[in-house]
């Protein structure tokens, strides 16, 4: 069954009938990132106005793979379990050269995490879930069919067009969540540097009855699509994603025609019994803004950075932007120094570089330039059949994992590496719940195997040690203290510390 694109309700904006009071936070774009940001701010008690020029969810799926980290972030917005239940969980990827399997990965070899490594879920479902939650939230003023047409980034003044006419509005902070083509970025004349890959990919979602396992399957030079690459991945509702590399000379308009698409897909799936749900032809890019902060404007998600989708680092990276921004912007809106936002720029700039590096490498491996690049790519594939070392070089995408921020908070280096400052505090089972459900709400002091000192503004969670906690948090130590930020990132850790040290680490982590 095709997805039902029911429009969201349009309401007349108050600004059409008289000036609105200055808003603390204004968000442009109700894609997954703008919606998640509004919900995250609301969670921290900060209201926002969120506008979108449209009134339906993303037409065609685009993002399908949502990472464990994204599910944890959605969980704090009340949507993690809904997304995981609707989605198709997976963790194994297989890469083939011709018909032979040359590389496979298992993204979550260990148990004891609330969420799987990945679920596949169409972007329109993620947006629908987020939009429903936002419409229900009294701190979010969500306005569909409101298009930003001009802005003064210094004064924080915006001009907005609606079906009932235009109005202006003012805000202290403007979050540009307006996507890869970001009109805000263009209005401000900001450079968006990076590279374009001269290649065209056909991306299609088809509906069919099949029992392909829910693994990610990727082929280099498949027998059914000579000389190119292909991807097949399952989504809910019997929908399958197919990517086919077409070559730079392909004509996108021609390739999108169903009579051209169908025979290509028949060769992939081996029959003609399917319905085409959505088709598009893309050329991919990896680009970023040098800085994500400009006057009163904060760039978040695709407006700040775009990547090619091999690795699923676009939407997942954007949700991590939200995670790094929400608590800081809420604090600033409630009176903290604006300088606190620099931490967002620093950390997410670092992450954008890592995401671009990984996405660009995978795309280059798929689309090598003539000469040495193609030579090495082809020989790696050839060697992979015989020599295990070469399999690790076969690159069809390195899937999104959160980066480790380069933080210099206090560290007790003999504690496990996987929970060092800058990492996401690893999940663990806790009685009848999960540690990830307890982190990421405010500042948290995790005391394992000892009592937690009282620190103002920091909640304490005292845990006895068990095998999983020992493995993820203690190593050979008997006890430890972990200071977690409101986004669940480890800010500092000690074997033992007093309230003053902890308080100082918390202050330093806000700079």
């Amino acid at each position: 069954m095709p997805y039902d694109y029911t429009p969201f309700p349009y309401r007349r904006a108050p600004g059409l009938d008289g000036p609105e009071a200055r808003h603390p936070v204004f968000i442009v774009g109700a894609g997954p990132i703008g919606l998640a940001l509004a919900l995250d701010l609301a969670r921290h008690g900060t209201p926002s106005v969120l506008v979108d020029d449209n009134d339906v969810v993303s037409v065609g799926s685009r993002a399908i793979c949502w990472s464990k980290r994204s599910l944890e972030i959605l969980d704090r917005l009340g949507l993690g379990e809904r997304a995981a239940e609707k989605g198709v969980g997976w963790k194994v990827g297989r890469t083939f050269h011709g018909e032979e399997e040359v590389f496979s990965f298992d993204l979550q070899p260990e148990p004891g995490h609330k969420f799987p490594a990945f679920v596949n879920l169409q972007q329109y479902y993620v947006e629908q879930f987020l939009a429903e939650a936002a419409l229900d939230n009294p701190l979010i003023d969500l306005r569909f069919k409101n298009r930003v047409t001009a802005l003064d980034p210094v004064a924080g003044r915006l001009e907005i067009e609606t079906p009932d006419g235009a109005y202006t509005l003012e805000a202290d902070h403007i979050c540009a969540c307006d996507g890869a083509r970001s009109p805000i970025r263009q209005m401000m004349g900001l450079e968006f540097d990076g590279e374009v890959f001269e290649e065209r990919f056909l991306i299609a979602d088809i509906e069919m009855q099949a029992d392909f396992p829910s693994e990610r399957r990727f082929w280099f030079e498949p027998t059914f699509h000579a000389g190119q690459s292909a991807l097949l991945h399952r989504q809910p509702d019997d929908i399958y994603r197919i990517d086919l590399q077409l070559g730079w000379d392909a004509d996108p308009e021609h390739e999108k025609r169903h009579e051209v698409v169908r025979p290509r897909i028949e060769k992939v799936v081996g029959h003609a019994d399917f319905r085409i749900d959505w088709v598009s032809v893309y050329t991919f890019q990896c680009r970023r803004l040098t800085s994500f902060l400009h006057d009163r404007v904060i760039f978040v998600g695709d407006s700040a950075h775009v990547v090619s989708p091999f690795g699923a680092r676009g939407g997942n990276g954007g949700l991590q932007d939200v995670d790094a921004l929400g608590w800081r912007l809420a604090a600033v809106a409630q009176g903290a120094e604006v300088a606190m936002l620099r931490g967002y720029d620093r950390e997410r700039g670092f992450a954008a570089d890592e995401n671009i590096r990984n996405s660009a490498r995978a795309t280059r491996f798929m689309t090598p330039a003539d000469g040495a690049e193609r030579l090495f790519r082809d020989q790696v594939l050839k060697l992979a059949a015989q020599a295990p070392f070469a399999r690790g070089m076969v690159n069809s995408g390195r899937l999104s994992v959160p980066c480790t921020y380069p933080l210099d908070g206090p560290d007790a280096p003999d504690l496990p590496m996987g929970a060092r400052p800058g990492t996401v505090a690893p999940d663990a089972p806790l009685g009848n719940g999960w540690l990830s459900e307890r982190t990421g709400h405010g500042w948290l002091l995790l005391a394992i195997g000892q009592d937690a000192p009282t620190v103002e503004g920091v909640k304490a969670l005292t845990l006895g040690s068990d095998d999983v906690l020992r493995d993820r948090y203690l190593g050979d130590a008997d006890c430890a203290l972990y200071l977690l930020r409101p986004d669940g990132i480890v800010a500092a850790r000690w074997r033992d510390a007093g309230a003053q040290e902890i308080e100082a680490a918390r202050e330093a982590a806000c700079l």
Partner: protein
Amino acid sequence: MSLNTHPNIPDPDDFYAELLAAHHGLSEAESHALNARLVLILANHIGERDVLRDALALVREAG
């Protein structure tokens, strides 16, 4: 460890002859492909990023 550029292969003339023999009868394109595989195999065997980086710097200089 840093890159060893001093003689390290016993019987270098024999090795050199074996290297040429491995290319025997190949077209130029096939020889390039063989060299690429050889680079990958040897690089993996060395395995030390510092040494490999030094080697890459040296080949750029020497070219």
